């Protein structure tokens, strides 16, 4: 973002402010005069708030001082954590890339029986939160823990994040390039490696990035599998030692790693162009598998069995076995109500905040608009623990009365799930035919009235979907909730966590089952949004 700078301004600070504001005003005046002038400052403010945690983490880490920083970063712990985190990330991203691409290819490009059912079954493991999956393995098999346990559990949890975008790319991409490759004498395998794979690379890179970001931020599953990563170390530092400064330092390393990954993905996707979509794109006739049908079906069945069957079996087992706890039983209903209340509250706020940002980016392709949107998406690199710590920092420093009060948790959720809300609102806006706003304006409607009478009614169903998506995702959040929840409040996730920490697996089961059930609709929604309605591209 470059703003024209005055050379004769009074003081550097005031000059910067003045030019910044003037540039924003100029940018808005350029295309949409009058009332929409509010949009740019509003979008900027929202993104500034959402991106603030990044600044707070840095500010807090700075308090540690140079000596402490050196001492902390020089400790062998850091090397161990780095080794653990990178080793795990390498194995899991590789495994999810192979499984995700393989499954997507089988479902989208071959004549496998029951392809639609397989698509849903392959996406559904997303509905099982990582820590619930960790619980289901740990409670059934004592031997699942440590590195390989973490690889197993995280691969099963995260491969759909690769599967869905790659399947979408295969479904909507033009098959003509593959046919041309065949007509030039390249066989199926060569075409797969030289054309299909490169064309799905942006989707693959995006999926793998999400996987590695999840890996960096995950706390619950690793704690349960007794595997230390940066996130678990931060949590321990903060919770046990109450050492906010060193926790922030570790968080900073974590955030740096995440930003590095985002950069890597941008670099990997940089040369790839969007494949052709729409009217000219043609779906390829499915590849007949012949003798490979049965092995392919068995492979998919094994994947679904391990990633979906095992957690469901564990839940059923512990639900039937009943309460095995000596802890006082808490109210499932109370926890559900608290969970939904906080999650929906946060979802409404996050969606409302996303509307101006999405509108700004959608209406104008100007550089400031794009930059603001990009910064908003950058915040998805922030692990839950970093967001939680920064919210705690703000509360302790400037809003002491709010410390451990409901708004803190809501704020944490909003920051954490803002990118999700933004994606959903953007998807809703994409459904609005281009030019309808101008058409309404040309009929003499004022901009604000256009928003109320045309744009919002058109995106309302999409906004509902955004609220549902964010709310359901937030309702299974564990890490930030553990740090930010008001004293005495238990959500499904934290109550589940209390029970499993006391090895009361039976008592934890109803909470886990409820969280899985709550996640199913959002996973189905995500699947449909990613892949489009069935048969849409025929």
């Amino acid at each position: 973002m470059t703003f024209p700078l005055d050379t004769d301004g009074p003081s550097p600070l005031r000059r910067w402010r003045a030019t910044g504001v003037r540039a924003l005003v100029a940018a808005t005046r350029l295309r949409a005069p009058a009332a929409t002038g509010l949009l740019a400052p509003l979008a900027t403010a929202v993104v500034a708030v959402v991106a603030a945690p990044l600044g707070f983490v840095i500010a807090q880490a700075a308090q540690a001082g140079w000596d402490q920083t050196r001492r902390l970063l020089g400790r062998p712990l850091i090397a161990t954590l780095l080794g653990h985190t990178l080793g795990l990330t390498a194995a899991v991203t590789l495994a999810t890339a192979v499984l995700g691409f393989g499954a997507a290819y089988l479902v989208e490009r071959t004549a496998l029986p029951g392809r639609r059912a397989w698509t849903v079954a392959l996406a559904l493991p997303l509905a099982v939160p990582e820590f619930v999956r960790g619980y289901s393995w740990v409670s059934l098999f004592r031997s699942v823990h440590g590195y390989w346990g973490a690889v197993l559990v995280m691969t099963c949890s995260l491969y759909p994040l690769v599967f869905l975008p790659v399947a979408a790319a295969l479904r909507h991409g033009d098959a003509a390039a593959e046919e041309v490759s065949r007509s030039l004498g390249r066989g199926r395998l060569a075409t797969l490696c030289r054309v299909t794979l490169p064309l799905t690379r942006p989707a693959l890179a995006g999926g793998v990035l999400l996987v590695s970001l999840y890996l960096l931020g995950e706390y619950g599953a690793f704690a349960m599998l007794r595997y230390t990563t940066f996130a678990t170390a931060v949590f321990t530092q903060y919770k046990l030692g109450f050492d906010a400064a060193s926790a922030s330092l570790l968080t900073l390393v974590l955030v740096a790693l995440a930003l590095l990954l985002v950069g890597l993905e941008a670099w990997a996707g940089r040369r790839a162009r969007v494949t052709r979509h729409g009217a000219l794109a043609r779906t390829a006739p499915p590849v007949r598998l012949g003798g490979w049908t049965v092995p392919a079906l068995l492979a998919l069945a094994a994947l679904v069995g391990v990633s979906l069957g095992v957690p469901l079996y564990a839940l059923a087992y512990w639900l039937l076995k009943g309460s095995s706890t000596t802890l006082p039983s808490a109210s499932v209903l109370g926890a559900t109500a608290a969970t939904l209340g906080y999650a929906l509250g946060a979802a409404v706020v996050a969606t409302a905040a996303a509307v101006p940002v999405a509108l700004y980016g959608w209406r104008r392709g100007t550089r400031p608009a794009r930059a603001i949107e990009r910064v908003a998406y950058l915040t998805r690199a922030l692990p839950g623990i970093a967001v939680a710590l920064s919210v705690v920092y703000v509360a302790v420093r400037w809003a002491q009365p709010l410390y451990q009060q409901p708004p803190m948790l809501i704020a944490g959720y909003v920051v954490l799930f803002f990118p999700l809300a933004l994606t959903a609102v953007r998807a809703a806006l994409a459904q609005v035919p281009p030019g309808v706003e101008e058409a309404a304006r040309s009929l003499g409607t004022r901009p604000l009235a256009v928003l109320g009478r045309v744009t919002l009614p058109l995106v309302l169903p999409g906004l509902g979907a955004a609220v549902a998506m964010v709310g359901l995702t937030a309702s299974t959040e564990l890490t930030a909730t553990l740090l930010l929840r008001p004293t005495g409040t238990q959500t499904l996730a934290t109550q589940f966590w209390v029970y499993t920490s006391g090895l009361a697996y039976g008592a934890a089961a109803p909470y886990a089952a409820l969280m899985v059930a709550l996640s199913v609709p959002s996973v189905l929604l995500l699947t449909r949004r990613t892949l489009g309605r069935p048969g849409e591209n025929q």
Partner: protein
Amino acid sequence: MTGLSVVDLHAAHGRSPVLHGIDLTVPDGALACVLGPSGCGKSTLLRVLAGFHPAAAGQVVLHGRVLDDGRSPLAAERRGIGLVPQDGALFPHLSVAANIGFGLPRSQRRARVGELLDLVGLPGLGERRPHQLSGGQQQRVALARALAPRPRLLLLDEPFAALDAALRAELRREVAATLRQSGTTAVLVTHDQDEALSFADTVAVLRDGRIAQAGRPDELYHRPTDAAVARVLGEANLIPAEVTGARADTPFGPLALLGSAPAPRSGLALLRPGQLRLTAGPVEGAVPAKVLGSDFRGHDHRVELRPEAAGLPEVLIAASDRSWPVGGEAYVGAVGPVHVLSGA
């Protein structure tokens, strides 16, 4: 020598049959064109030839080699048939040179790619990426890529449809010249009759999954076998006619018959708009008519008229070198020779 020969080809999409017995022969080195409205099965025909859609029955033979006999189709990559899809479908992740060299063995790439870039008139653009090219350039690269491995047959699927009119005509001429120069046998599929008539040595009109008529462009234009083929190739006035000897008696008077082909005793005489003459006053053989509309088309005017005589179609279309006032009177005459179609 026969290049491509298609015999009694049937194909279906699932249960619904699309092609019902296509017979088509394309001589070696010739440019053929399959012309038909959308949905007539021409894309399916192309895909069967390329090997992306199996034939249900019939035979596809190229240079004596059976490609598909309804039972075991040869894999697309083993046919040696080049394909230029509608939108080019360049590989977006590869440079222009890598696109063209895609189907070549590594050792030949450098020399052959340069040769082809020259052939399609894009020397020095090898390092560009597909998205840096204009639509016409992309289609040229797609053509070069398909020609690179010296295919036995080149298939073009409406390759000019996405281009604007002026560029389309120019590129069409260029491509035809390039193909003749390289001696490639080619089949072009299109719904644009101008394209078909100007591009091809042989035109086959495809209708409802069957070849309605095939032949040289001028033959098809002047001597269609039925009214529908006549109309697919351009605007047509079909006038009832009685044939005696080498003469056709029409409401415009007697007209000479075209060529020496045997004509039915009675049928419809085909008069293209250019064969109708408009005059302001009565002349011999001319029929009075009311001018319904007159559109300027640059090189001439297209005039719609309602004849005021029995036995003529309700609307006649004439080409005239001047504009006629709408609602006014005009006299329509005809010049032969004419072709007479059987049936009414």
